[in-house]
């Protein structure tokens, strides 16, 4: 039976983030969070594989207890079970500590539910945008990896994937099990259904595992176990804008605009 593990993260909703016009800094308070958009593409790709080949989808996230909401949504979309890796000691993990924690969870999943064929990730998260977790997990588990994948098929116990690169596409083939990171926007993720969301309420559909259950080396997890630390944060102060807004007659407005652009030297005219 095909078994796909999809790793997701909950991130602040980009469409709700606002810049404080006075200070030019990011307002983060009160911003809702949701599943990282590329992770939804990964989950959708997994669901389509399941529709085609059958099997089971297990969704995993690492984070505080309220991340459970994202797992309920994933079950609602059609995942079979979900695991929340939650432990205060895991908090503040960098990519190395996160990849270690997730790879230990993969081992535990295969012990409890049977071996997996594929591990999916979104290409990166919209909050930290590293793209390192998928390859990091592949490195820890010594599995083959294919990143920035926009479509996938299974053939003769192998995975064939289309990989998006700067100058075109590459077709990659890999043995199973393999780690795949899914290119953002490569499909349209489905909405959760009511029956799916009800399933998430059933016992043992969503499990919670902590560091002890995963038998983690606690020197390698969380902030304390992270090789990198954020030493400080600078707010990016946005350039002051002129905010000259023209309303009224289009012809005059456009003329006025072009005059401004010529005066600013961003449009050059041969006289």
């Amino acid at each position, binding site marked *: 039976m095909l078994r796909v593990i999809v790793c997701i993260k909950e991130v602040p909703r*980009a469409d709700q*983030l606002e*810049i404080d016009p006075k200070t030019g800094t*990011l307002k*983060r308070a009160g911003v809702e969070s949701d599943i990282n958009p590329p992770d939804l593409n990964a989950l959708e790709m997994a669901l389509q594989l399941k529709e085609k080949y059958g099997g089971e989808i297990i969704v995993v996230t690492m984070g505080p207890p309220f991340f459970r909401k994202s797992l309920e949504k994933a079950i609602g979309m059609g995942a079979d079970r979900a695991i929340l890796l939650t432990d205060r000691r895991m908090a503040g993990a*960098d*990519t*190395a500590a996160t990849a270690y924690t997730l790879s230990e969870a993969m081992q535990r999943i295969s012990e409890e539910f049977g071996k997996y064929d594929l591990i999916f990730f979104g290409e990166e998260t919209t909050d930290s*945008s*590293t793209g*390192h977790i*998928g*390859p*990091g997990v*592949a*490195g820890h588990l010594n*599995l*083959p*990896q*294919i990143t920035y994948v926009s479509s996938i098929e299974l053939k003769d116990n192998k995975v*064939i994937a289309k990989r*998006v*690169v*700067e*100058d*075109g*596409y*590459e*077709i990659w*083939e*890999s*043995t199973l099990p393999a780690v795949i990171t899914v290119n953002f*926007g490569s499909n*349209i993720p489905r909405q959760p259904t009511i029956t799916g969301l009800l399933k998430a309420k059933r016992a043992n559909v969503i499990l919670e595992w902590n560091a002890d259950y995963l038998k983690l080396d606690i020197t390698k997890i969380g902030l304390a176990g*992270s*090789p*990198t*630390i954020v030493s*400080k*944060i*600078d*707010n*990016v102060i946005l350039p002051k*804008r*002129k*905010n000259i*807004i*023209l*309303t009224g007659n289009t*012809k005059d407005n*456009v*003329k006025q*605009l*072009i005059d*401004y*652009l010529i005066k*600013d030297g961003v*449009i050059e*005219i041969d*006289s």
Partner: protein
Amino acid sequence: MIGDISQYKGIWVFLEHRNGHVREPSLQLISKAKELADKRGVYLAGVLLHYGNESLIDEVIGYPLNKIYVVEHPKLKNYSPELYAEALAQLINIYKPEAVFFAATKNGRELGGRLHSIIETGLAADCTDFQVLPDGNIDMIRPAFGHTILAHILCKKHRPQMASARPGVFEIPQNISGHKAEIIKVNLDLDKFNPRAKMIEFIPKKEESDIPLPDKAKIVVSGGYGLGKPENFKLIEDLAKLLNAGMGASRKVVDLGWIPKDRQVGQTGKTVRPKLYIAVGISGAVQHLAGMQQSSIIVAINKDPEARIFKAADYGIVGDAVEIVSEMIQQFNQLKIKRSS
């Protein structure tokens, strides 16, 4: 890796190559890495993994590198993250560099991501600047949260310090006439490693349009959902052609399939920094602003006077996008615009 970090000396740049040439983002990194190596008083090395591609050495020998580590092995003929990460891990274990930098290309990111977990060190992604601190550690600086903050990242207890650097931030250094880096050919035992993931075909991108991508031009005209329908993008194209500009788009119209993803400007698309950015029918979500807020002059055209884009703009015109852009085309047509702009 944790241990005696004082044995780790020297700064490395991974020289990524594609289609027989070292890629520009790797060359750009040499200039910044040289500055860091000079401040640290250590050597700067390039690292080249290849098979049967000796000319790659000639391409980089004149740059200000002290050494070039070259590993030539049949298994390295085709790029493979599995094998390349294995080879780099072996090299790092032998020569113990204090820092290793990658270009933040797709291959650079996936390779660094795999490598850092194998050798158990830290990795900062997509940095835009680096500084040497008084204690000798490297401050790795990267934008986050849609470029609204800059995070300073340190890797104090593990070596090597590793980071990827965003393409286009640093300039390719001058070739130094007569300069010859020391070539160090290294034999690695890679025979027993067989990559399980392999590339079997490459399909080059077809240029669908001769209008430059948004990150390749000094003026950018971008369109959004406010244009109403995909056909209206023709006007954005016309305006872009007239101004010798690149064409961009908002995430929404890319998601809708109106415009290919490689034209998306924003947090999950491209970051642009042109001298003039014209946003047409774009409401101005933070995710879009993140990708264009460093532009010198921003023009917004939108029918909603409350649209967030106006707050981020130098000049705005409130009104129907199609009507305004048509008028712009007409008026620009009557002026002789310098093509150099």
